[in-house]
């Protein structure tokens, strides 16, 4: 199955989780998601997600001057973002659990055939 389809549903949680670890600017978030194993993540999606979470009030944003180039816009998680992360995290884990047992049952029955 194409992971990009799965990513769409969980990108919000993934981005919040990354920022919960440490503040970051757009490309930095992209890199950290990829480093964590989400190779397929598109950077336009990450940008859009950051922007949407910010508009929704889940993130703070500040500009940091940089020596090598233009100023960077950093994002950080706030209280509302943390609440969302906790909530979505729980939902995700429950969902993953369900999926896990569902898939385990199907492999078992396949083995019996």
């Amino acid at each position, binding site marked *: 199955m194409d992971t990009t389809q799965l990513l769409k549903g969980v990108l919000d949680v993934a981005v919040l989780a990354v920022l919960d670890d440490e503040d970051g600017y757009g*490309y930095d978030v992209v890199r950290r998601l990829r480093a964590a194993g989400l190779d397929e993540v598109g950077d336009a*999606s990450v940008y*859009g*997600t950051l922007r949407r979470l910010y508009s929704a009030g889940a993130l703070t944003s500040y500009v940091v001057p940089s020596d090598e*180039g233009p100023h960077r816009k950093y994002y950080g998680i706030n209280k509302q973002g943390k609440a969302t992360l906790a909530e979505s995290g729980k939902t995700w884990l429950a969902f993953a659990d369900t999926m896990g047992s569902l898939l385990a049952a199907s492999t078992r029955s396949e083995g019996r055939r």
Partner: protein
Amino acid sequence: MTGTTVARSQDAQSYLDRVGAALADLPEEERADLLDELGTHVDEIAAEGASSLEARLGSPEDYAAELRASAGLPPARARGRAVVDVLGRVQQARRRPDVAAVEHFLVALRPVWWVARAWVVVAMLTWFAQPHWLRSLAVVPDLGSAAVSVIVLLAAFVVSVQAGRRGRLRTAPGRWLVTAVNVAAVIALWPVLQTVNEAVLYGTQTYYVGDPKPQIVEQPPAEGVYSGGSQVWNVYPYDATGRMLHDVRLYDQDGNPLSLGLAFDPTKQQTLDAAGQKVDNAFPYRYLDPTTGEVADPEAAPPIAAPPLLGVPAATPAAPAATATPAPTNGKR
């Protein structure tokens, strides 16, 4: 787009321009903000590798679509690929120094347009408010009294310039209104200029309503002799038998020589009398051939046939002599 262009590569710039073109329907502020943030990102990616951005990030249009989808922005209005392409090209053209120079010049002229459109709109409204039989436009459109006209025009200037300075409006109806006014003003600009120009050249017509006393202007007497409303340029006398006469001297009722009052013409034959005085009342006037200095055609006459008069005895040599000396009693001229 703000000035974060720190040695941006051409590839990055053209990529950004095309993403920008695909986002053209977003409010300018939001779009600029997105592109600004994207700019630093694209620069960074461009610096990482040698392959083109399009190869690494996908087409700018897809990139923009992905950005919209994940940011929860409305999807692009159904715009053909061609339109987006043209917009992208326009963006790229604007990077060229010559195009940019022209654009900067036009941007500097924007306040002129703000004033002009206010004037055109006031002029148009004035025009349509006037009864159709006495429409006219002055430089300051006449709204009844001079003070009202000036105040309305100045108020229109202020509104238009302020609207221009505020930039792109956020609400769609506001943007539509501004666009409609601009389009109408562009279309009306030339006719309004023409009308005002006419008024300036020929003057606005003034109508006297309820003034029964017409103004009588004394006209200076016109020089020359007139017959049936048109000026007489020559006189051809014919005798009773229908024969054209030459060098007939004519006098008016006061005994003054009858001159046709023509402007000096070097080709007109100059006649002198025995006293050495110039004679201007000997008819018909004759004209000289400029090359020979001789009278070009002594028998020249209008195409008429004058039939002999009835009941008049054939001219005797005495009769013309009598008329030739009408004894000018007081006329010394």
